[in-house]
């Protein structure tokens, strides 16, 4: 019961803030809502027993990536959002059509869930000693090569960002 | 309380210029003055000596030549323009004396160069020769309204940008223009002229 209450509250907030992110007039407000949204997502992860991921979500997403967004918004600090002088709802029809399709899909999933409840799967691998150890163990054994590729990706992105943002090299 | 008997203020005629006494016979001007006179004949109008200071009175139109020579001449080498200022002598036709105080850090000697400039007469700026003169000339422009030409940045410096009049001129009242000037300069001028008239009568 407690789990359900927690889920509904967190999920509700996630969706509310996600809507606010998309609808906020000012980009800075969007960024702030995004941070709050990510904090709730982190809470959801924690409730799912993924503490390490929850912390990473806060540390990397909320504390790192979104600060970058905020930084750029401040640098590009426009007096008014582009919507003020460009047609703000150019693709509204398409957007809403797409979301209608999406909602339809959701409905299908939901009804399918009612018709045929997901079987409770047995635990495949017993947790090692804790969530962090488990994730770390997997990262450095089975998924070592993807991990290295991800690090290469980050390096390339870092160099790319510097090259792009620097005025003269 | 008894009124003190009013002593009518004596109107002293305003002086028409500094005395600029010529050097006494036993004082020879510094060597570079002779060099200057030789290099630029006619640029030096007179020399003067008073309480230990040498002054060159130069032709206003040739100030740039004189300044360049004084800076670059090896016996003069006045690399430092320690002050530029002006004096207002209203009765004179060329009412301003622009005074340059020069100093040489190499020879450790001083000279004063003085030129006479009229109220609207354009006068070449020496800020190209001594960058230090930049602000000094701005101040002279601000305070006296000397019409400097070739100045890189001729704005008022101490007074507000929209100030009317030139405060250091002798005919500018000490108490300032008052509110009236700021609001209506023409009325102020009329009032002032009326006051001066009454003063004379």
């Amino acid at each position, binding site marked *: 019961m407690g789990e359900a209450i927690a*889920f509904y509250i967190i999920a509700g907030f996630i969706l509310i803030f996600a809507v606010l*992110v998309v609808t906020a007039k000012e980009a800075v407000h969007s960024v702030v809502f995004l941070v709050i949204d990510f904090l709730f*997502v982190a809470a959801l992860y924690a409730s799912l027993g993924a503490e390490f991921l929850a912390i990473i979500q806060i540390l990397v997403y909320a504390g790192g990536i979104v600060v970058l967004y905020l930084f750029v918004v401040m640098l590009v600090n426009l007096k008014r959002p582009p919507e003020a002088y460009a047609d703000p709802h150019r693709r509204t029809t398409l957007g809403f059509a797409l979301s209608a399709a999406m909602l339809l899909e959701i409905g299908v999933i939901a009804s399918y869930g009612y018709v045929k409840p997901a079987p409770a799967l047995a635990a495949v*691998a017993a947790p090692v000693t804790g969530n962090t150890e488990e994730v770390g163990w997997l990262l450095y054994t089975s998924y070592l090569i993807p991990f290295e590729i991800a*690090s290469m990706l980050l390096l390339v992105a870092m160099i790319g*960002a510097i090259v792009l943002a620097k005025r003269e090299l | 309380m008894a009124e003190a008997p009013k002593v009518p203020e004596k109107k002293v005629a305003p002086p028409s210029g500094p005395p600029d006494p010529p050097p006494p016979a036993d004082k020879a001007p510094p060597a570079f003055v002779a060099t200057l006179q030789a290099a630029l004949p006619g640029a030096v109008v007179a020399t003067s000596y008073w309480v230990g200071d040498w002054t060159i009175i130069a032709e206003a139109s040739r100030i740039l030549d004189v300044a360049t020579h004084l800076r670059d001449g090896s016996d003069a080498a006045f690399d430092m323009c320690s002050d530029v200022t002006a004096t207002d002598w209203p009765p004179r036709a060329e009412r301003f004396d622009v005074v340059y105080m020069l100093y040489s850090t190499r020879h450790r000697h001083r000279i004063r160069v003085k030129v006479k400039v009229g109220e609207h007469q354009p006068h070449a700026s020496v800020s190209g020769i001594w960058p230090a003169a930049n602000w000094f000339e701005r101040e002279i422009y601000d305070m006296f309204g000397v019409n400097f030409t070739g100045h890189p940045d001729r704005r008022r410096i101490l007074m507000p940008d929209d100030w009317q009049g030139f405060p250091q001129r002798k005919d500018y009242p000490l108490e300032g223009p008052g509110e009236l000037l700021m609001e209506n300069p023409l009325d102020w001028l009329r009032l002032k002229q009326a006051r001066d008239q009454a003063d004379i009568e």
Partner: protein
Amino acid sequence: MITPTHYMLLSAALFTIGVVGVMVRRNIIIIFMSIELILNAVNINLVAFSNQLQNAVGQVFAIFIIAVAAAEAAVGLGIILAFFRNKETVNIDEMNLMRW
């Protein structure tokens, strides 16, 4: 009882909001943020299944997705800055040239 279906519904809704954001908004920074929402929707799914299956692989993939998101944000925002410097706009409709 909260089943994976609930998480999938949440994830799908979040995904939809992100897609609508991308479609409707013209400010490129907000479009980027909508993409972050979409990535998070995916992550929620991964973590929910990871929990359901009692297997941490889902979380490992979520971490990879976060790494990719960081890379995407760094390069994307770099492009936005470079673009803004030249065109003084962040409106995506005005970004119609491949070079300037």
